[in-house]
């Protein structure tokens, strides 16, 4: 069942207005595939009829936007970022934040929360118990923010990348689902936020995960997002993008640091108050337990 030009344009425009994500003409197959189940469930045999219905049905609009922009996610996605967090970033920050004994992390496109809770698990397992961790988990979708708040996952989701030892240590059964333990839920703060819009005041973060969301933005939006984000990363902090993404097109604001297969972005030039920072680049695998001395700004 081929969807009409009009319907495709309407849907692409709806998604763009809500999330700034762009759907080109090449994504027609995807729009059809993802809306078809929704159309059926709404009792519409015709896809164009369903799209017409979207124009006056806010609840259905939300469902459609979610279906089109939410991608399957897993725990500890791509593995490397979490290994580098445990082996490089946390050891550095353990030294650099020794006075405050506090870390702030931002999962900036948190989706259903697996990334935020994976970060929480890594911190829980690698930081001394008297340290405070705050993980901000933001997403443009209300549905997703609510999912993060609930912290509940089905069997299929739990099978995606979560080691069984982490499952027994950090989750309990609630009905047919698994629920993240309070020791981790209390550390994660979910919040609705559209990266494509000006940011509210969020403070500074030691680590920012902005993974697999930039690719959905056009070049200009991408540049804006990275520029806004630069102000939220501590001068000696870290920004992680998706596996094949780089922030090189944002100019001199970031420098790349390599850790095994992973590239990590460090602020090269702080915007706003604070002395310029030139930190030591980490070469090769970090040694656990070694205190890394890094001068922090301000």
């Amino acid at each position: 069942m081929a969807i009409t030009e009009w319907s495709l344009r309407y849907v692409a425009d709806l998604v763009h207005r809500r999330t700034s994500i762009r759907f080109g003409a090449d994504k027609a197959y995807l729009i059809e595939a993802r809306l078809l189940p929704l159309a059926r469930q709404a009792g519409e045999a015709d896809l164009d009829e369903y799209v017409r219905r979207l124009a006056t049905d806010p609840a259905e609009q939300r469902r459609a936007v979610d279906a089109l922009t939410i991608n399957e996610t897993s725990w500890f996605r791509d593995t490397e970022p979490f290994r580098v967090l445990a082996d490089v970033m946390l050891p550095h920050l353990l030294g650099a934040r020794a006075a405050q004994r506090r870390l702030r992390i931002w999962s900036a496109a948190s989706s259903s929360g697996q990334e935020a809770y994976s970060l929480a698990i890594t911190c829980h397992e690698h930081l001394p118990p008297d340290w405070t961790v705050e993980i901000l988990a933001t997403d443009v979708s209300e549905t997703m923010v609510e999912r993060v708040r609930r912290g509940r996952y089905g069997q299929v989701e739990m099978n995606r990348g979560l080691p069984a030892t982490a499952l027994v240590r950090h989750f309990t059964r609630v009905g047919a689902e698994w629920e993240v333990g309070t020791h981790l839920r209390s550390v994660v703060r979910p919040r609705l936020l559209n990266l494509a819009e000006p940011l509210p005041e969020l403070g500074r973060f030691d680590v920012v995960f902005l993974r697999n969301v930039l690719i959905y933005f056009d070049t200009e939006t991408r540049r804006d997002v990275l520029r806004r984000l630069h102000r939220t990363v501590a001068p000696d902090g870290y920004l992680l993008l998706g596996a094949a993404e780089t922030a090189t097109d944002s100019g001199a604001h970031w420098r790349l640091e390599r850790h095994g297969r992973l590239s990590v972005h460090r602020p090269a030039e702080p915007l706003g108050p604070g002395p310029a920072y030139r930190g030591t680049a980490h070469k090769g695998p970090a040694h656990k337990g070694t205190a890394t001395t890094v001068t922090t700004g301000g």
Partner: protein
Amino acid sequence: MSVGPPTTPADLAALVEEIWGSLVDVATEPLVPVTDVLDTVPLTDPWSGQVAIDGEWHGVVRVDVAPPLAEALAARMLGDELSGEPGVADLEDAVGELANVIGGNVKSLVPGDGVLSLPAAGRPLPTARGALVCRTDHRWAGHRLSVTVLADVQEETR
């Protein structure tokens, strides 16, 4: 003991949809809940699978599948291993495994720990006995799938 049913229709429907979706492709052909009461009459001559749960809670989980649906399920599960139409053994196996996975997940909803029996499957399978806890009905590609949870009736009175 006045507690609500161990499984609600919403819980059961969510389970069935997730499990069915993991066995067959639902991206282009979704599993649709049936709400029209005329559509919930007992299936005629279905393929059936059943598991028993025994522990703090005693009961059965019964799956009734329209024959074309059982064939579609078996064909998808067996893939290339199947040459031609699924045979009786294939259909019993597929419907039995469906009952096994659904029943295993229902087991996690009922009170206490329990033991899951090996599945029984057939066409027909003897009528399941017990007090109705809940039931869901769905359609996939126009054919019906019905899942029923029954609790053993306690004879003794206190």
